[in-house]
């Protein structure tokens, strides 16, 4: 950081947005999600992230609309602060410090109706926390999740569940009721509470349980005479419950990823919305009941329009995935980042827009949402250099049976603009596939070779053959071309040289070099001790070098011409990768629990760039993404970022990248343009249209002769514009503003008469008048007009000798007519 201050590590997406339930604004236009240290505002119509509310210094643990002002929102964080945001104007309006050193407070619920603040303290504090400023402890023992706390009808009571206990606290009476369930119900499954929701109009509490039951509690203001009704549909734990604003329906969701709608009062009537993609973690309804939003365990959110069970709107997913098993790849065609996403899918993720483009279904099987089931996972994927072909490996490891493995080969179809399955090879290897790569494209592009290395000690070369069948019903198919092994060692990694003439395969300690043309073993290289972890061929001017890293902290560079070790250095490289557009290589090294980055050229053992402590933890996935346009940077330490950008995934699945100072400035500039000044969602479409409208206005002006008259209207005043466009709740009182506002609306008489006068005086070219500025005050306007008329008069005199008197008279009459029409226009 210190030595290269002009290159910074920045966060580029991949943050979790499913940590807490999202909030839908009352106009259903925006969705607010807690995401790491900030709150993200998404537009519900375009699914784009409109802006981020930044200010917390730690994890945001809750977002809540302010009930008294629907344009403001509270957020709380583990940094001990609660902030009130005005999410339209991008400013922190109010920032009450709750208490210093209150970082034990993980979950803060606000009750703002009576301008009272109620904080619930968690058992982490050991004993009840002493009162803060206006703090009062309500319930001593609650769960650390907002799902387990709910306010009752009109804020009269608060209910909380923990373990097998439901606690209801009435604010009026300051009384607490507790209800306990037995440890096990009849079939021996757990009765534990998981979530709670209160009916907005009725004194009913619904609770969800571990065994999939939902209980509707009534009469809970009595110690003994309470009743409950049990509903059962879910077969796994109910993870979220939600009443619609009018209380007519109850929504529930769980592992099954089916959203169930129970009709309140007629609980036997259920509606289902099945196959939502992943475990439902939260269900939210917008305050007007028009939008429903479910957030899922795979970091996606789906929201639905008004008729829940008829209309599906769209899904919003941000960089799904709890664990990335495939490498990070860049699709050469769309320049999208590709990695495994939803179970059994590959996701294509746009780096520029931080948005999921689409999911490619690899496994093509119905996903069964059930706990403890072994699922088929996509574990490896590889693109060829042109993006024409894609190879994927999926595997499933059942407990008692052998590994199920299949290799699928896809071809890009120009017509459908997507990948279509070409060949499925079931059980391509006996053991799991450790590495896979395509040979660089051949000259004719007709055939392709894929090499897969497996734990079973073999590597196989698969070749695409265009079979010259007369029938022509079969497309190209893939077949095994060669099976190779080396002393029954297990291959760990493989790599093709840039021209495709050499294949390097690391068999534990030994690097073997093969010729793909003849499948001959050319030579072996070895640098014990330690197994080979990564292999990379140099490119361009360094193509005679082969780089390798071993698990025993060694980075080696072999010269392929002499087949000898060129240089080696001792560092614990966790990931080595080469830039496809230059000879640079990047090595991520782990040191003291932090990752350092070194960028170097294979020809010299001196780093071009190094950055200590890029991020905590080990970096195991990274990729060079080619830039659209060549970056101009003369600074030596930044030059490696000229052609491509380096992205990497941190331990917490955050996508990070390196950014130069110049680039940062550009980004800031473009961000400023995007700042919203309207309630209209800022979409690219709006930007385009808005720009057009403004430009059109400028163009239109010269066509209207009455512009000068219109310009006098007070809307043009910048102050008034500002006044009108500022949100009402941040303005001073209306009484204070009224007189000022009305005054500004008045049209001064002198002003308009003067204009009339000017118009009469004008003899020729009106176009000159149009250049007059709207804000120009009376005085300068007159001066300029006089000057203009004088000039016109001179011009007329210069032309006069050429024409006769009658002609001049005729001309004057015509001019008079015109003036009359103009003055008529001005009067009205």
């Amino acid at each position: 950081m210190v030595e290269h201050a002009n290159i910074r590590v920045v966060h580029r997406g991949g943050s979790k947005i499913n940590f807490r339930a999202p909030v839908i604004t009352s106009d259903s236009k925006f969705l607010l999600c807690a995401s790491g240290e900030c709150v993200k505002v998404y537009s519900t119509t375009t699914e784009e992230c409109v802006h981020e509310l930044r200010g917390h210094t730690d994890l945001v643990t809750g977002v809540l609309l302010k009930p008294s002002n629907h344009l403001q929102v509270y957020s709380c964080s583990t940094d001990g602060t609660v902030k009130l945001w005005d999410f339209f104007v991008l400013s922190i309006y109010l920032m009450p410090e709750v208490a210093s050193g209150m970082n034990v407070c993980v979950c803060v619920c606000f009750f703002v109706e009576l301008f009272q603040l109620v904080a619930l303290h968690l058992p982490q504090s050991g004993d009840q926390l002493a009162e803060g400023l206006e703090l009062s402890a309500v319930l001593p023992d609650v769960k650390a999740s907002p799902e387990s706390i709910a306010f009752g009808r009109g804020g009269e009571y608060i209910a909380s569940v923990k373990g097998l206990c439901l606690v209801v606290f009435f604010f009026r009476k300051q009384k607490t009721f507790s209800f306990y369930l037995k440890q096990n119900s009849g079939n021996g499954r757990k009765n534990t509470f998981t979530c709670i929701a209160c009916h907005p109009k009725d004194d009913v509490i619904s609770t969800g349980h571990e065994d999939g039951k939902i209980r509707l509690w009534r009469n809970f203001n009595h110690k003994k005479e309470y009743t409950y009704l049990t509903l059962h549909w879910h077969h796994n734990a109910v993870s979220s419950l939600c009443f619609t604003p009018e209380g007519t329906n109850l929504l529930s969701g769980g592992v099954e990823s089916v959203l169930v709608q129970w009709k309140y009062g007629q609980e036997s009537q259920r509606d289902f919305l099945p196959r939502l993609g992943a475990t439902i973690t939260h269900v939210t309804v917008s305050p007007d009941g028009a939008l429903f939003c479910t957030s899922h365990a795979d970091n996606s959110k789906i929201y639905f329009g008004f008729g829940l069970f008829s209309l599906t709107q769209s899904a919003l997913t941000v960089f799904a995935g709890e664990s990335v098993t495939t490498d990070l790849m860049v699709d050469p065609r769309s320049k999208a980042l590709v990695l495994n996403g939803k179970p059994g899918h590959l996701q294509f993720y746009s780096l520029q827009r931080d948005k999921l483009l689409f999911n490619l279904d690899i496994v093509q099987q119905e996903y069964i949402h059930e706990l403890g089931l072994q699922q088929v996972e996509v574990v490896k994927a590889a693109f060829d250099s042109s993006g024409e072909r894609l190879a994927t490996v999926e595997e499933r490891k059942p407990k008692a049976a052998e590994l199920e493995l299949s290799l699928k080969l896809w071809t890009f179809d120009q017509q459908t603009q997507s990948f279509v399955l070409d060949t499925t090879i079931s059980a391509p290897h006996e053991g799991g596939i450790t590495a896979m790569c395509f040979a660089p494209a051949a000259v004719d592009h007709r055939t392709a070779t894929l090499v897969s290395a497996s734990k079973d000690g073999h590597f196989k070369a698969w070749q695409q053959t265009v079979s010259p069948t007369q029938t022509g019903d079969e497309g190209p198919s893939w077949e095994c071309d060669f099976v190779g092994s080396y002393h029954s060692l297990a291959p760990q990694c493989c790599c093709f040289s840039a021209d495709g003439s050499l294949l390097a395969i690391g068999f534990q300690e030994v690097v073997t070099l093969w010729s793909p043309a003849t499948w001959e073993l050319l030579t072996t290289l070895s640098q014990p001790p330690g197994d080979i972890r990564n292999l990379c061929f140099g490119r361009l001017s360094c193509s005679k070098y082969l780089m390798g890293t071993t698990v025993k902290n060694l980075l080696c560079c072999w010269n392929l011409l002499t087949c000898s070790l060129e240089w080696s250095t001792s560092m614990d490289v966790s990931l080595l990768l080469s830039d496809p557009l230059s000879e640079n290589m990047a090595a991520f090294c782990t040191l003291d629990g932090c990752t350092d980055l070194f960028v170097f050229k294979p020809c010299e053992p001196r780093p071009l760039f190094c950055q200590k402590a890029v991020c905590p933890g080990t970096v195991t996935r990274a990729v060079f993404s080619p830039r659209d346009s060549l970056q101009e940077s003369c600074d030596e330490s930044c030059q490696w970022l000229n052609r491509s950008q380096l992205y990497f995934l941190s331990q917490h699945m955050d996508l990070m990248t390196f950014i130069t100072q110049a680039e940062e400035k550009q980004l800031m500039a473009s961000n400023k343009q995007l700042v919203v000044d309207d309630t209209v969602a800022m979409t690219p479409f709006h930007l385009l249209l808005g720009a057009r409208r403004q430009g059109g206005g400028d163009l239109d002006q010269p066509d209207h002769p009455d512009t000068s008259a219109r310009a006098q209207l007070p809307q043009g005043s910048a102050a008034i514009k500002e006044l009108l466009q500022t949100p009402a709740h941040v303005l001073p009182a209306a009484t204070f503003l009224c007189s000022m506002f009305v005054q500004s609306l008045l049209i001064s008489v002198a002003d308009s008469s003067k204009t009339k006068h000017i118009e009469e005086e004008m003899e020729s070219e009106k176009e000159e008048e149009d250049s007059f500025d709207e804000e120009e005050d009376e005085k300068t306007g007159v001066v300029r007009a006089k000057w203009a008329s004088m000039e016109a008069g001179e011009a007329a005199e210069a032309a006069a000798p050429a024409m006769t008197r009658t002609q001049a008279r005729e001309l004057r009459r015509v001019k008079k007519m015109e003036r009359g029409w103009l003055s008529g226009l001005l009067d009205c």
Partner: protein
Amino acid sequence: MASFKPTKIPVYPKLGEKVTQETLYWKNYKAPVQIKEFGSVTNIDVSPVAPHNFAVTAFTRIHIYGPFSQEPVKTFTRFKDTAYCGRFRSDGQLLVAGCEDSVVQLFDVSGKVALRKFKGHTKAVHVTDFTSDRYQIVTGSDDYTCRVWDIPNATELTTYQEHTDYIRCGVTSKLNRDLFITGSYDHSIKLFDARVDKSVMTMDHGQPVESVLLYPSEGLLVSAGGRYVKVWDLLKGGQPLVSLRNHHKTVTCLCLSSSGQRMLSASLDRHVKVYNTTNYKVVHNFDYATSILSLALAPDDETIAVGMTNGILSIKHRKNPEESTELSGQHRRRPAYRVFVKGKNYIPQQDDYLVSKPVKQHLAQYDKHLKKFSASKALDTAMQSWIRQKKPEIPIALIKDLDRRGTLKNALAGRNEQEVTRLLNFLIGHLVDPRFTPVLVIAAEMMLDIYGSVIGQSSIVDRQLLRLHDLLEREIDYQQDLVEVLGMLDTVFACHLPRKEVPCLGVNRSNGLAKGETSASQPQFQAT
């Protein structure tokens, strides 16, 4: 909300021969007509003029069959011993045949008594043929000689005594009246010119020559002998062109298809193979009941006639194109084309408002059950007899999917005797199929787990289980044998492959480098 993804039924590559245009062409024959002759059929010759009768030489007779009759049109019986090589003249009027008793006889096709008898050979005459000028006969005999005879006055014109063994095949040129070729058991093929008194070209086949064949252009010669079929280029002075070894017993007969694009060879190994004459690849194969001695093809490939050692003459006629159209005409009448395109060919105008109809997803019955999570019903549907027999991949894909869903045990359990029998039958039928084994082994284990306690209650189920047991034991033995063979083959390969030394970097030498130091050491070896 994603739609239900139906069970993926894997498409297995079709094993066995691929269906090509060739196979379609050569399979387009009716069921063969089988005629029993008195002895093995040694020669079949097709009349060059319509109606293209067959002269079939078998034992002491020559039968002439019409193209569609199963009874002989004519029979020549005036042979004292076994007749050989009955051949038509190019105008189809005369027929010549050799005989075991060394006499060559010439017949009128319409008559019965021999017109001429040519005596002079001392042993059996196996080869007779007309020259292309139609006035002479060429014969080859077991007395190692071949002779040219004049038909009108039945005199011998020339004798060639160049072969050193039996002459068993020969052919005359269709373009030149003086050229003829003979093949002999002395492995040689000789080209004779009647104008000179010795052979003009000799080719060594390497095996006793059984059959020779001239291309219509007469630039290429094909010879068959032993297991080999060889092609010679006559214009290059008898240079061998190709040697084909596709039969595993002696090739006895050769013939060309009428277009000259395909060549057929018949062999004692009971196969007739069809070659493409441009690349000499086998494009089709016919199987017959016993060893084949003779083969003939009628013009336009209308008929294939094959004579075998057990005296059976098998005649296959090509299917008429009219018949196949008649068959298709018998299908039930489908609704007119108009009905299908009704309203679908409307092209929307620019200002039309399109109301899209939701596409209804079609699901198979078992998928519908799977969608409702009823595993047993899904398995039942997929095990319906016609699916089970016609498309075993469907039940197997379903079993795999149920296993993935963790409900296979539930689906297999709770069945009655009949259903268990059905499941076991299916297992027995497909368990050893290598494509299905991994899936079915899981199912079989579960079946045994579930129904292990009820063994002995039903004799049918017990019998099935015993069968399954036997099957598995046999399969294990078989696999063991295969592994043994594999081991043997490995040793054989290891002995025969040239051992290539792989240059290996000296492990110890490169180990002593200091950290981070550039090693400018001398090259330790040169890359090969």
